């Protein structure tokens, strides 16, 4: 039987606010345990939550971004509810979340599947607070509780079950990751847990329109784990069903070391969270004026930018790469502006997505910290386009730029890297090479193409790589034919 995989994602994006969702404590990562937990975060008797307006603004920005700037999906009135359960790192023994009336209802994300655009619908996005952390290492016979993270604002983004493969799920997660950073609501740091996904996975016979029983894989904090976990889980479900077994609704954990998903709890022992509206917080009212203000402050969205790049000659895949973050796209635009009206965006993309991003990765830098500026990259591209530099020389210039030797012209000058395009000089060198390599000339004439490459190599060697390879090709061919 052929099976179809059905995936929906629930993503937790930590919002980039200075202070917590309902208290004034700092949200900065990595502070000593419990140094950023105030009376409200510890849930002392008598303390009360006060909503962080900046977190609400983030949610509204998101709502606008996934709905083409229209605010129909932003609830003008939403409700905070208490989700009740006991856990040592949940100080109030309830999490303040949104349940029946979330701040964002609906919207969609566009992803690219085999070069074609696919829409993934969003069910909702709601605001909630994070829990603290239980720390098991370094203690004997007991566990530690660190409440620094308790109360950190999160936006939980829930998709419809619209994805049909692990690759689509990863493409969606990446698009979402890019979007939340693009609109400045989340730093996207996955190692620190600022962006993490739960994947609901089910399978069904191809052609069926009934959803299979799903299992939820919790807390996937890298795209690689997301892909591995879904692949493993889907294969396991198919194998189970084909072996005559049944899938039971459950929550599972992915073990990255073994590459397996493991059962955490079944539906039977699922909590009854006893949600009810939090009486400490009034219904959240969002005014039109506020929405308009936020809309005005929104940057151009990645979708629009991506489409503009494609119109300028980028392939869909290149356009996705360049719009992976606002900083990358801005770097591209900056470079193109510096390059002037005859800029070819695909060429610039090759530099940005190729050598530049390789260097950034090597040194663990983000593009705003690039050692090669957009102006420098433009100067390099200009000298390639006008034939001054061969591609090999261009690499050398790029490396020199990265090392801080200045812009392209200065490096070309200093290193004497000008490509020899003077045909008189090249003809002379070609003649010398032909004369000195009788054997290869003979082989070439006997039909051995490889011998020709060797001759080109000799010329390049003689010119220390400064010859224009295309020109060398042309001259050699002409000379070898004419002498035959």
């Amino acid at each position, binding site marked *: 039987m052929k099976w179809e995989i059905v995936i929906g994602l629930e993503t937790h994006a930590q919002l980039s606010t200075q202070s917590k969702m309902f208290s004034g404590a700092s949200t900065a990562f990595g502070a000593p345990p419990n140094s950023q937990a105030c009376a409200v975060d510890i849930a002392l008797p*008598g303390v009360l939550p006060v909503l962080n307006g900046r977190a609400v603004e983030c949610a509204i920005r998101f709502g606008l971004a996934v709905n083409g700037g229209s605010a129909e999906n932003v609830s003008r009135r939403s409700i905070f509810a208490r989700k009740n359960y*006991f856990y*040592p790192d949940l*100080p109030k023994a*309830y999490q303040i979340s949104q349940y029946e009336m979330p701040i964002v209802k609906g919207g969609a994300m566009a992803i690219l599947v085999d070069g074609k655009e696919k829409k993934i619908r969003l069910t909702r996005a709601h605001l909630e607070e994070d829990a603290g952390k239980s720390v098991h290492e370094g203690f004997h016979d007991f566990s530690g509780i660190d409440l620094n993270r308790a109360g950190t604002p999160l936006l939980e983004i829930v998709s419809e079950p619209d994805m049909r493969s692990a690759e689509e799920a990863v493409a969606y997660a990446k698009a979402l990751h890019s979007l939340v950073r693009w609109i400045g609501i989340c730093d996207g740091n996955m190692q620190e847990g600022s962006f993490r996904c739960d994947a609901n996975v089910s399978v069904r016979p191809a052609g069926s329109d009934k959803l299979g029983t799903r299992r939820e894989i919790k807390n996937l904090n890298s795209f690689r784990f997301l892909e591995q976990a879904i692949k493993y889980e889907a294969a396991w479900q198919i194998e189970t069903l084909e072996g005559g077994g049944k899938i039971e609704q459950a929550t599972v954990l992915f073990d990255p070391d073994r590459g397996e998903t493991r059962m955490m709890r079944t539906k039977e022992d699922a909590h009854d969270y*006893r949600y009810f509206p939090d*009486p400490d917080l009034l219904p959240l009212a969002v005014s039109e004026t506020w929405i308009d203000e936020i809309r005005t402050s929104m940057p151009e969205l990645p979708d629009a930018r991506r489409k503009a790049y494609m119109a300028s000659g980028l392939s869909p895949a290149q356009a996705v790469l360049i719009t992976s973050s606002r900083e990358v796209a801005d770097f591209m635009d900056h470079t193109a502006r510096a390059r002037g009206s005859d800029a070819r965006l695909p060429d610039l993309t090759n530099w940005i997505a190729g050598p530049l991003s390789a260097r950034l990765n090597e040194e663990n830098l983000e593009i705003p910290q690039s050692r090669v500026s957009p102006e420098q990259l433009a100067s390099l591209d200009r000298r390639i386009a006008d034939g001054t530099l061969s591609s090999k020389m261009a690499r050398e210039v790029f490396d020199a730029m990265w090392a801080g030797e200045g812009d392209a012209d200065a490096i070309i000058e200093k290193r004497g890297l000008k490509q020899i395009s003077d045909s008189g000089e090249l003809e002379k060198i070609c003649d010398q090479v032909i004369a000195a390599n009788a054997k290869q000339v003979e082989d070439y004439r006997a039909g051995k193409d490889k011998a020709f490459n060797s001759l080109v190599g000799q010329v390049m060697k003689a010119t220390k790589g400064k010859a224009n390879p295309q020109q060398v090709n042309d001259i050699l061919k002409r000379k070898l034919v004419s002498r035959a």
Partner: protein
Amino acid sequence: MHNATVKELSAGLAARRYSSVELTRHFLKRISTLNDTYRCYIGLDEEASLAQARSADGMLAAGRGQSLTGIPVAQKDIFCARGWLTTCGSKMLSNFRSPYDAHVVEQLNAAGAVNLGKTNMDEFAMGSSCETSWFGPVRNPWDVATVPGGSSGGSAAAVAARLAPAATGTDTGGSIRQPAALSGICGLKPTYGVVSRYGLIAFASSLDQGGPMARTAEDLALLLNVMAGFDARDSTSLEREREDYTRDLGKPLAGLKVGLPKEFFGGGAAPEVIQAVEAAIAELKRLGCEPVEVALPNMKLSVPVYYVLAPAEASSNLARYDGVRYGYRAPEYGDLMDMYKKTRAQGFGEEVKRRILIGTYVLSHGYYDAYYIQAQKIRRLIARDFAEAFKRCDVIMGPTSPTTAFKLGEKMNDPVLMYLNDIFTTPANLAGLPGMSVPCGFDSKGLPVGLQIVGNYFAEARMLNVAHQYQQVTDWHTRAPSGIEI
């Protein structure tokens, strides 16, 4: 000094007839002699009180005295006060020393009032008799075999026994008004949102409201002037201009329309209570008030509605007492779940557990709509009834409590009977309206009766005006129980 009102003491301090330290010592001495009898106080810190008194004397000497500067005020042990044990009447918090001040405490401190001590109360404010306190019951100064009412019974008894000139209380379903009535003093529950709940240990957040308890309406006004006010740390605190609650005290009552809901007089209350309340209304008529009959058809549902909503919120509010971070933790336990179970089983009393169970039940999957949602709907109907009634009258009056003080132990084994004590007080909480109780007579056993006045939203000044005018022509509030002299 102990028979004087806050107003009189304030004048005495201003005239330097005595210092705040002398006044505070006077009350502390009375407390040390009489507290074993009445058990109104469960937290005393003489040094801390006297330090505040000294600083108040400094303020007075520097000419910076305000109306409450140097006045000893008893604090219900539900208000967090920095450095003080704040127990909420529970074993669960018996070791909890608050690191911060409630807004109410902050305001009183800033005004120069002296924290005289923390008063006994029903555990987590759950009770109408002060018998659920882990520290043992409070005795009613009018008859030590009876209860003072609850949950602010420690505060009420302290004021009645002249162990404090005034006190703070909180009222979720009648916890200021009912003990005020049973103990023969005055108590005011303001409009929901007027007094910040920050630092007030939550019982039922949508109903809890702090307020003053004293012997005269005028004193209540002086206290409310300090206790009320916007606080950004409480999202339900109302952002309004400060008002002077004494401003209307002297206003004549001619033409004031007094709404008398037939449901308040329809047989739910003891005949002697009704008699006293009717006599009070007759007195007010002589002052020019016009009685108007009004109806609160859904009032009969207020107790069942209250006992769904309040426990629902409480079950969640009290979940934080888990033994992990502060408060009581069972001395011996196995795993985490066992620690939770033993801590909560040992740390909470019977009534608190009963309400947590009820609350958990009504919020559970499958019952939520039938109980919680239904109760919320009726809550809105009750508020609507009041809105209708206030189209026809300025204030509503009736009994505060269906009976006078009952015997200790009399209702402890019958929770439903106990809950019915709240029949006349819960409607104001459910609607968020201000309500107060004023002494209006005694029954044949010599136990005090309270007249309840419910006003429209923000009508506190008007209600205090009515009560003050009534107290100008009656002397019920000046009577003192016997046995309180040392």
